[in-house]
């Protein structure tokens, strides 16, 4: 089209084109649809021409102070095949730079209806997260997320405001980068990829909530290595748990032992640091196999007795075609709990010696159209937050808890690549009063 001819269009014209285009779209269903559609096409073409011109100008501007050697060596009308000087940017990339600062967000609004105790039905803004990522230079960026749970946070409301991530990442070499600050621990399948569009089911699975604390983060530093064979290696030193927070009078420790004593870098006690490592391999398309290990002392020099918390997991995900299978096994241990529990005997919730969980999940994309995709799924999980207790003597040692088994069946309906509707039913084998129907709306960008 002739409209592609380079033509100087000031910003005012661009704005006018935008307004005209918006107006055209708004009235596209009217009787003059054809005429408006033609006008729309014309404006779109003109806009494309302006964009192309802008890119050319940017290229010219970027190239102005640099020596013209690579271009000059190329034959007229041809692209030079001379490799760029070491460290210099590819010519194409220089014209299409990403934004320096990007706003990100995800959120979940959930409806939970227990089928046997419908009076406990709830609707909740489970999470509303705003974040930003900012690049300081070509190798250094900051990543942050600020989360509000349960909509309102005040002295009289149940909500919480939390800094979920706040770290600096520096690319040291093409393989290695260094992360420092508050970051999500590379454990299991969910923790680092916890946006509602990334997992099946309205609620996050129990294994990666009750055994691996949900959205588990620590403060510290880690090295991340991405190798050409598909291996990703992560390792570092971080803050750890604080066993002094264990509340033997509440049931919190039974719901999730580590969640009840995590510190989240909120005036975190830093006497006892922890070490962690994670290895993930994605060398075959569609397959992920990995594992992680975290270990550290957790009494923070606040108690006479020391105790070590260790948590490890192995996980795999396989996505052949429309199928999506995943599994996680994780196990945690706390050492020296006999000594710690001696002072807590008589309370309802003593510190467990071990806890573990396992799940299998399968999903299949049965239907897709444009960005719509419907994926029914089923998940079977078993978890035990108090699998064993250290021996305290006859009559004093608590009985190990029974493992809970939960079957979740439902479907995710992707509405666009960043929006998902979810529905599922969860059946609990041990505590059937928890059986429930869930509906959810989630987004992420």
């Amino acid at each position, binding site marked *: 089209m002739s409209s*592609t001819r380079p033509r100087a269009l000031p910003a005012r014209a661009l704005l006018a084109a*935008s307004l005209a*285009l*918006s107006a055209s779209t708004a009235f596209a269903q009217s009787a003059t649809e054809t005429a408006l559609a033609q006008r729309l*096409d*014309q404006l*779109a*073409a003109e806009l494309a*021409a302006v*964009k*192309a011109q802008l890119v050319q100008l940017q290229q010219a501007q970027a190239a102005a102070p640099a020596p013209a050697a690579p271009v000059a060596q190329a*034959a007229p009308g*041809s*692209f030079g*095949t*001379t*490799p760029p000087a070491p460290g210099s*940017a*590819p010519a*194409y*990339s*220089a014209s*299409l*730079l990403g*934004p*320096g*600062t*990007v706003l*990100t967000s995800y959120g979940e609004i959930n409806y939970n209806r227990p089928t046997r105790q419908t009076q406990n039905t709830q609707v909740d803004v489970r999470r509303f997260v705003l974040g930003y*990522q*900012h690049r300081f*230079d070509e*190798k250094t*960026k900051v*990543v942050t997320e600020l989360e509000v749970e349960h909509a309102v946070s005040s002295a009289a409301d149940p909500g919480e405001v939390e800094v979920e991530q706040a770290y600096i*990442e520096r690319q040291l070499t*093409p393989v290695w*980068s260094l992360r420092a600050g508050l970051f999500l621990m590379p454990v299991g*399948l969910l923790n*680092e*990829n916890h946006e509602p569009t990334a997992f099946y089911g309205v609620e996050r699975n129990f294994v990666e909530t009750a055994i691996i604390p949900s959205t588990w983060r620590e403060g510290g530093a880690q090295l991340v290595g*991405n190798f*050409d064979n*598909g291996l*990703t290696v992560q390792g570092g030193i971080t803050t750890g748990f604080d066993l002094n927070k264990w509340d033997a009078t509440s049931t919190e420790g039974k719901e999730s032992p580590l969640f009840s004593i995590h510190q989240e870098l909120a005036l975190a006690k830093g006497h006892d640091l922890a070490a962690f490592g994670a290895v993930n391999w*994605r060398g*075959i*398309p*569609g397959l*992920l196999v990995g594992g992680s290990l975290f270990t550290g002392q957790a009494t923070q020099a606040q108690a006479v007795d020391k105790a070590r918390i260790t948590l490890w997991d192995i996980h795999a995900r396989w*996505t052949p*075609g*429309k199928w*999506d299978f*995943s599994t996680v096994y994780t196990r945690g241990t706390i050492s020296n709990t006999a000594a710690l529990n001696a002072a807590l005997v008589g309370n309802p919730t003593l510190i467990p010696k071990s806890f573990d969980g396992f799940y299998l999940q399968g999903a299949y*994309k049965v239907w*897709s159209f*444009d960005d719509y*995709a419907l994926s029914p799924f089923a998940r079977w999980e078993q978890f035990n937050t108090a699998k064993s207790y250290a021996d305290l003597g006859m009559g004093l040692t608590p009985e190990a808890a029974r493992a809970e088994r939960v079957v979740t069946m439902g479907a995710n309906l992707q509405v666009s*690549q960043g929006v998902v509707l979810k529905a599922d039913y969860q059946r609990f084998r041990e505590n059937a009063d928890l059986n429930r129907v869930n509906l959810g709306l989630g987004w992420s960008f």
Partner: protein
Amino acid sequence: MRVVVAASVSALVIAAPTSAFAVDYLSADQAAKLMFPEADAFEARNVTLDAAQLQQLDAQGVRGRSASWPVRVAKRAGATLGFVVTDAVIGKVELIDYAVGIALDGNIRQVEILSYRESHGFEIRLPAWRKQFVGKGSASTLRTGDDIANISGATLSCNHVTDGVRRIVAVVALARRGGTLA
């Protein structure tokens, strides 16, 4: 509507740096040479799609996004060997630069990642993932979860690069049918 969306996006962009590369793997020229090592020249063309062609793309389920596409035509002794198109798509929040080489039969010869900036999901650069595209063309589905396997933890990068490759294949096919790309 595209303009409105673009305006919204730009409102979120607080600043634009002069450069933004976490890891650069290849320049566009290097990628072109890698894809067509037998070429002795790469001729610069600019494919411009008109409104009717953009509508055709839309009818194929491919979002045209841009009407203007710079294409490198690989030549040897004056004969056309194929085409190389470079593009950028957003992974999760950052741009991924990539190049697609298309042979004369319209099928993909190679896909190369030029620059990757995200903290996660670099695995789309692995040869095993990119090999899935080789030999596929406009008759192929070219969608993750169908004929292109997803990478766990890099879903958005996989989706967006795959969508981008499908768009480039369709654009080149359309331009060749229209006679603007011989």
